[in-house]
């Protein structure tokens, strides 16, 4: 089953890959076409048809890896910018130059920087231009451009980290325009040279208002520049200065967090200072970001802060400590589990999940015995499940033995959630506990762990306990251990033997309910016999157990009950079981269809038909679609049937697009099903045959559209002929289509003459000629010998899928004309001869090319002659 799923997934992935490969078809362009397109583009403006912009984008894509054509495109774009082209055309071209411009574009763009209407688009083209010329042009334009452009250029120089512009930017700090001065301040910070940093510090000392704010931000950037250049002292001096209480809160927080971002232990001083601050935001920021400092000394500082802090700060400190990888942490957190404040205790429990060990587990278990609140219990249990260290499991088990009943039940669950199988001995003892809640929890854990110390005892408990809850938990445990567990003994045999020994109907029923967990011939037979028992209680139990039977072997028996029983309830139970088996097991589609059809015929009520349709809708088979279509005629189930039709048409689309799309069309035709129309429309539109006209590949007179050795291939009576019956055929030869075909339906008439034991030919599809050779590689729809109707691979030299010869022989005409149909769609290749499908193959090897030419073959060997005519292709979407 797992293997089958993997194949399914591979097919899904493979199908996607085909779509990728097949849909890419790059347009190509000559230098003239590029020039023409861009000349024509000069007058482009609203509301013209935007197709030309798509063409230009295609040009940019096409010239990507072609330096000469790329130069042509750039040259034409420059020419356009220099001409009187519309603003819209020039803007669009600048956005293309953003991608492909070289230094050749720079002089033009530089001029544009000085013009009000074009400065913005020129900036766009130059922003990430990788040539030095661009930076030079931007610096040049800086003194001459208009104010808004100036800001843009300053921003861009900053983003480009253009160190050569630092002097100019420093001068602009004194600009009369506040906006320009601020922009210069920010860019200086972004570029981050020593000289710039110095200028910022000096300017900030005297600045005020918005300029002061901008310079402060910039100064923070300078500090980052120092920190990354290993001048940590200088960086921290700035942070220390900006953390000063005279600064605004956001600036102080930024100084603090930035200092911690350096990761240097020297920053710990700032952290400690912030934790002692009155402002809760700064305090929280210091604690939350303390994780940036890995130094053990920092752990110590957090721990000592924990001792004196208010409880809401303690919560944050405990959380921060819980994230540290430091052995010191455990004791401090353990201490905090004894805090008076409940939030602190809960935070501490939670933190132990990360830093705790076996002794912490014992502590947590013990806390469960001390009247915890519901919130505490939830936290403790969550921690006990997550905590991972040596000996935790056994510590919990030890605590379980000494715990009081409520805690004991919780710890049993923890053991089970932790998958601690070694606890099964203890659990086995506890399932007989006087406290029924404990016993039930133990049984549930045994089932969940799938670990059991003796099935016989649990069966006894199931049959003999006076507590109904325990009896049902025991049954559930037996089923779980049998189905999922690692239990040696054959539970099925055990149950069947017990069944013979017990007398009461109640006991028999208890045992029978287990049988579906141990499927096998004997189990099924036993249930079938019981379903005809004279005792109604036993009959009922058997039918219901069969309906839960996990293997498809029960399907026929259930269908039989559905058809023959006199008990209405059993009818529906059996039908449900039947459908469940069809849906959940890897049942072949053909068998499922057969069962659904039979069930449909026997269905007596609309409710039954609806049930059948719900299952039928999942069967990917054209026949299933037919059943659903028929059901659409039945007014009482029309809605359900239509839903099934749409679902099935979707599934069948890849197998039989005609039927699928006709079915979807039927839903579309009915206006009362409007809700389903969008989905149906998608299916109709997805039909790869929709709107596709057949095209003849061979005109019967010339080799137009074909290439090959014309000494071998000739035309006679409107057919392509190759080979001779007079003597041996020297070697393999192929007549190939000039064009490639990937997804298509090819139909042609073929005839092969010569000895049926030796004559061979075939049709290559998705194939390539081997350079310098007469051979080809690729798939072949084969003809001749035992290969008729098979799919052969001329690459891997093997039969990929063979025809069923006895069946094919019923329709194959050895000496006459045969109708060959070849359908290639996605990774799937299907072949038919005279209407009989011989091959349905899906290529799972993603490396095999799924497009190529069509090649008509004559195979080398003893005398043989092959003829091909009426070659019709439909190229699919």
């Amino acid at each position: 089953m797992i293997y089958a799923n993997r194949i399914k997934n591979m097919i899904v992935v493979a199908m996607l890959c085909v779509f990728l490969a097949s849909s890419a078809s790059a347009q190509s362009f000559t230098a003239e076409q590029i020039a023409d397109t861009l000349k024509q583009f000069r007058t482009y403006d609203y509301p013209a048809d935007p197709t030309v912009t798509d063409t230009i984008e295609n040009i940019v894509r096409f010239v990507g890896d072609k330096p000469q054509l790329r130069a042509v495109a750039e040259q034409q774009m420059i020419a356009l910018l220099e001409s009187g082209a519309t603003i819209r055309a020039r803007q669009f071209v600048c956005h293309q130059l953003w991608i492909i411009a070289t230094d050749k574009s720079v002089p033009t763009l530089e001029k544009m920087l000085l013009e009000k209407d074009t400065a913005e688009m020129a900036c766009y083209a130059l922003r990430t231009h990788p040539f030095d010329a661009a930076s030079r042009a931007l610096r040049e334009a800086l003194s001459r451009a208009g104010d808004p452009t100036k800001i843009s250029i300053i921003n861009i120089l900053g983003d480009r980290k253009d160190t050569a512009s630092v002097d100019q930017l420093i001068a602009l700090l004194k600009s009369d325009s506040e906006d320009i001065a601020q922009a210069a301040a920010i860019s200086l910070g972004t570029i981050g040279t020593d000289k710039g940093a110095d200028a910022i510090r000096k300017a900030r000392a005297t600045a005020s208002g918005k300029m002061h704010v901008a310079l402060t931000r910039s100064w923070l950037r300078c500090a980052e520049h120092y920190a990354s250049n290993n001048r940590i002292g200088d960086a921290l001096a700035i942070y220390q200065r900006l953390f000063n209480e005279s600064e605004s809160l956001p600036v102080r927080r930024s100084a603090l967090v930035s200092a911690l971002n350096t990761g240097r232990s020297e920053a710990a001083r700032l952290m400690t200072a912030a934790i002692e601050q009155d402002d809760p935001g700064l305090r929280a920021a210091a604690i939350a970001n303390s994780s940036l400092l890995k130094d053990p000394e920092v752990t110590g500082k957090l721990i000592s802060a924990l001792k004196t802090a208010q409880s809401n700060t303690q919560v944050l400190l405990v959380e921060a400590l819980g994230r540290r990888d430091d052995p010191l942490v455990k004791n401090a957190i353990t201490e905090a589990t004894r805090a008076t404040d409940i939030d602190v205790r809960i935070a501490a429990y939670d933190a132990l999940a990360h830093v705790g060990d076996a002794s912490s587990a014992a502590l947590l278990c013990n806390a469960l015995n001390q009247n915890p609140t519901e919130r505490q219990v939830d936290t403790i249990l969550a921690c006990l499940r997550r905590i991972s260290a040596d000996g935790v499991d056994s510590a919990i088990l030890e605590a379980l033995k000494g715990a009081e009943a409520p805690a004991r039940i919780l710890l049993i669950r923890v053991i089970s959630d932790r998958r601690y199988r070694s606890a099964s001995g203890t659990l086995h003892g506890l399932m007989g506990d006087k406290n029924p809640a404990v016993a039930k929890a133990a049984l549930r854990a045994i089932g969940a762990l799938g670990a059991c110390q003796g099935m016989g005892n649990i069966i006894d408990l199931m049959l003999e306990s006076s507590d109904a809850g325990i009896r049902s938990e025991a049954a559930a445990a037996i089923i779980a251990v049998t189905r999922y567990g690692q239990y040696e003994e054959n539970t099925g045999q055990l149950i069947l033997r017990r069944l013979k020994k017990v007398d009461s109907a109640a006991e028999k029923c208890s045992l029978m309910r287990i049988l579906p967990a141990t499927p096998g011939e004997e189990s099924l037979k036993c249930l079938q016999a019981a379903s005809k028992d004279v005792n109604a209680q036993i009959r009922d139990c058997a039918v219901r157990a069969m309906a839960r039977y996990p293997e498809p072997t029960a399907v026929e028996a259930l269908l039989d009950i559905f058809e023959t029983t006199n008990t209405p309830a059993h009818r529906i139970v059996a039908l449900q079981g039947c459908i469940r088996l069809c849906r959940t097991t890897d049942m072949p589609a053909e068998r499922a269809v057969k069962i659904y059809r039979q069930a449909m015929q026997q269905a007596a009520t609309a409710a039954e038909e609806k049930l059948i349709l719900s299952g039928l809708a999942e069967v990917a088979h054209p026949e299933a679609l037919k059943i659903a279509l028929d059901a659409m005629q039945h007014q009482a189930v029309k809605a359900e049937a239509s839903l099934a039709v749409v679902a099935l048409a979707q599934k069948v689309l890849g197998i039989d697009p005609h039927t699928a799309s006709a079915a979807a069309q039927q839903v579309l035709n009915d206006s009362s099903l409007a809700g389903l129309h969008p989905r149906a429309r998608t299916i109709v539109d997805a039909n790869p045959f929709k709107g596709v006209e057949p095209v003849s590949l061979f005109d019967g007179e010339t080799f137009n559209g074909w290439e090959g050795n014309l000494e071998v291939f000739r035309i006679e009576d409107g057919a392509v002929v190759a080979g001779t019956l007079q003597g041996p055929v020297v070697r393999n030869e192929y007549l190939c289509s000039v064009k490639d075909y990937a997804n298509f339906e090819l139909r042609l008439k073929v005839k092969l003459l010569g000895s049926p034991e030796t004559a061979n030919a075939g049709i290559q599809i998705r194939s390539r000629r081997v350079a310098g050779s007469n051979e080809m590689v690729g798939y072949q729809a084969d003809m001749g010998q035992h290969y008729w109707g098979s799919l052969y691979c001329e690459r891997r030299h093997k039969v990929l899928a063979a025809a069923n010869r006895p069946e094919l022989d019923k329709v194959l005409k050895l000496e006459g004309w045969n109708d060959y149909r070849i359908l290639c769609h996605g990774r799937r290749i299907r072949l038919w001869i005279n209407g009989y499908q011989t091959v349905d193959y899906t290529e799972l090897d993603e490396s095999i090319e799924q497009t190529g030419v069509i090649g008509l073959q004559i195979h080398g060997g003893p005398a043989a002659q092959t003829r091909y005519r009426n070659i019709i292709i439909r190229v699919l979407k």
Partner: protein
Amino acid sequence: MDKRISRRAFIKRAVGSAAVPFFVSAAALGKGGSVAASERLVLATIGHGGRCSRVMPHFLPYKQVQFVAVSDVRGDRLAAGKAQVDQHYGNKDCTAYPDFRKLLARDDIDAVYIATGDRWHSTASIMAARAGKDVYSEKPMSLTIQESRALVETMKRFGTVYQCGHQRRSVDSYRFQTEVARSGLIGKVHTVIAQNWENPVAGPQGPAPVPDGVDWDMWLGPTPWHPFVPARFNGWNYFWDTGGGTIIAMGCHYTDIAQWGLDTDDTGPVHYKGTAEFVPGNFYDVPKSAEVTCTYADGRKLIVLSRHLFANRFIRFIGEKGWIQVDDETNVVTAEPRSILKLRGISAKSWANPGGHIEDFLRCIRTRQETVCSPEKSHRATTIGHIANICLRLGRELNWDPKTERFDDADANRMISRAMRPPWRL
């Protein structure tokens, strides 16, 4: 690998350390549901359109939250935003700002909820952080890779609490899905398929007068100038200058979930290959449909699809032993083997309810801890969408180095950032 986990344990693990639900503690609430002044969080919105009006009701139940201001460049939305807030508080106190810079200048505002068009997300987030505000921003967090990298650095520099609106991280179905993917229950995951719907196609349109009450220049913000064209105003999602189509608009949610489930929150795929269906004559820039295969360094694949209908979107993790899928439209989880589903706790909340995501944000404002959609994680997820679009625009395969955040392709490297219209900058 036997890693069966009981349902209860599973829920607990998925919720993780959220076992300290700060905001339900009665201590935080004063009498009659009012909140002590020190606990109050003053909020404002930037961009008050459809998304904001749908999300805001999920903020309002938190008693400590108080909205005092809204902003929008569209007069009608601004008025509707103010009305929404005023109606909730039963007064007229909410201030409406056409220009969000005035809103950011207010000292009493602690945090902002940003739900503008994509073009403003990172610029507004960064400006808010600089003004000392914490930020919950709608997705996608940026228009370019450089924008969101700058956002990450800014949030780090200012110690800002930033929550990206990838709210599926706070939704039970996706938590469950990613937990299953990471736990090995479906074997080693080799492929993730994420399907968005397909982009619309439109015919050409010409400029029109700017509608009354719309500040078109502010609407465009940092993006390249264009005349007012209704299709651009309403369909900004489908133009490269202002959006990136569903592959980024919705795709960022799924790449975020994929990154989470693959445990690659601090890195990303290294190879991109894709095809797109650019429809000639389409007034919109983005392709009608597309698919991009993103491959991680260890060979795992993330296949991002933009096709079919809105209702068809899903995300599926495929492992060696099975798969798990969340159908985004219905929030239904399916899996193979089906037994996995028994481990799930059932929650009625779907992606449409960002309540849990908001709660995480509000908690982090107090604790200054990292949100579930922290800047770095969100940037990495968003980057996948940006690279996918660059790959489609260039029409070639791309190699990406998640460490240096550069391509080995000079043209693609240029597309990491774009010039912004003055006076805007990052």
